[in-house]
C-alpha cells in the first residue's frame, strides 16, 4: 500500500490518504453483548440491585470468553451464558447464607429469549402478592414496587416505624412461604 497507511503501526502516512479503521464491534462481541443484556435482566430480577447484578454479569462474561474464542454460534453462546448465570446465582446465594445450594429454594429457571426475561418474574411476584393478607400485600407494594420509604409506609398504614419494620419482616416471610409453594 503506498505510504503504508491503513494497517501496521509505525509506518509513515501520506497526507490526504485515508486509513481503514476497524468496525466498532465485531459480530461475536455484538452477539455476546446482546445476550448479556438478557443475562443482566435475568440476574437483576433475582438479586434486586444493580451492584450485584453487574458483578454477576461480569462473572458470566468472563466465563464465556473461551466459548467466544472457540467461535461458538449464537444459540450455543446463549445457552452457555444462561447456564453460567444460573450457576453464578446459586453460588451467590450459597455464599451469602453459608448454605449448600440444595438447601436454597431458588427460582433459576430460564425464560426463553423470545419472551421478556423479566415478565415471568413480574407475573410471579404479582401472583405471590395476591395470595398475601391485604396489609402485607399493601406494605410490600408500597415499599418495593412504589418506592416508599419505611417511614412513608408507616404513615400510610397508620403505625409506628418500629411496628412497620416488624410487619415488613413478617410480610416477607409470608411471601417467601407462598413463593416456596408457587
Amino acid at each position, binding site marked *: 500500500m503506498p505510504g503504508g497507511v*491503513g*494497517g501496521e*503501526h509505525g509506518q509513515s*502516512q501520506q497526507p490526504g490518504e*485515508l*486509513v*481503514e*479503521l*476497524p*468496525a*466498532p464491534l465485531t459480530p*461475536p462481541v455484538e452477539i455476546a*453483548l446482546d445476550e448479556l*443484556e438478557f443475562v*443482566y435482566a435475568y440476574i*437483576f*430480577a*433475582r*438479586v*434486586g*440491585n*444493580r*451492584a450485584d447484578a*453487574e*458483578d454477576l*454479569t*461480569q*462473572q458470566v*462474561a*468472563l*466465563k464465556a*470468553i473461551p466459548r*467466544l*474464542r472457540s467461535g461458538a454460534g449464537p444459540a450455543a453462546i446463549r445457552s452457555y451464558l444462561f447456564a453460567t448465570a444460573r450457576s453464578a446465582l446459586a*453460588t451467590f446465594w450459597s455464599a*451469602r*447464607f453459608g*448454605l449448600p445450594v440444595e438447601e*436454597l429454594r*431458588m*427460582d433459576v429457571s430460564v425464560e426463553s429469549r423470545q419472551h421478556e426475561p*423479566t415478565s415471568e*418474574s413480574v407475573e*410471579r411476584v404479582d401472583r*405471590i402478592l395476591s395470595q398475601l393478607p391485604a396489609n402485607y400485600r399493601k406494605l*410490600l407494594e408500597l*415499599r*418495593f*414496587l412504589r418506592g416508599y420509604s*419505611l417511614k412513608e409506609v408507616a404513615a400510610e398504614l397508620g403505625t409506628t416505624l*418500629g411496628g412497620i*419494620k*416488624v410487619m*415488613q*419482616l413478617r410480610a*416477607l416471610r409470608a*411471601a*417467601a*412461604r407462598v*413463593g416456596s409453594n408457587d
Partner: protein
Amino acid sequence: MTEPREERNAERIDRIVGDVLAGRHLKATPSDASDHGAIQMAARLAGSRDGYPRMSPAFRRRLTRLLQKGEAPEWINRRSALVAGLGLAAGAVGGALATELAGLLHPARPERGTPERGRMEPRAPLGRWVDTGLTLADLDDGVPRRVTAGAIGAFLVRHGEQVAAMSAYCTHVPCELAWLADRNVLNCPCHNLAFSVEDGRPMSHGPQPVPALPTVKVRVQEGRLEVFGT
C-alpha cells in the same frame, strides 16, 4: 406481640432491604441464613420494580472493553476472577487476564495516548446563543438529538436533568456522524469509527488515535435549549 429478638431481626432485614432498594450490594451473611427465604423474596420484589432492567451505558462499555480488548484490570475484582474460574490473584489480574483475552477478536494493541478532548466554539465576534427550538422534555434520556446552530452541528444528549452537547462531526475525517440506535453509538459513516454517546470518546481506534468529540456549549434559557453557534 413483638419480641425483642424479632425486633432485632426486623432491623437487620430492613438494613438489607434498604441497601438492595438503593442499588447497593446485598449484605446478607450466614447469620441471616434462617431468614434466607425472606431476604431472597425481598430481592425478588426489588428486582421486579423497574420493569425491564437494562445495563447502564457505563457498564455496557466496560463489558465491551472486556470482550474486545481485555481492558479490564480496573474493574475486575478478585471475587469475579475467582468465581469465573480464572484462578488469578488480585494483583495479577491485569496482566493475566489481558493475556487470556488477547486474540479473542483482535490482536492486542499497545496502549497509546488519546488526544485530549477539545471544545468547538465560534470566535467571539461571530458566536451567539442559538435557540434549538427544543426543551429538555423533548429529549429522551441518553438518546442523542441532532441540532444545528448556524455553523455548529451538535448532538444534544440528556442525562437526567442535565444536557450535554458534542460536535456532530468525526474527529478523524469531517464526516457527519449518525446515531446507531442498536449500538447506542455515534458512528462515522466514512470509516465506521464509533464514538460514545456518553462522553464522545472514540470506542475503536485505527492506526492513529483520534480525539474525543469536542464539546459544544449548551444552556437552558427560559426552558429552551440553546447552543452556542453562529
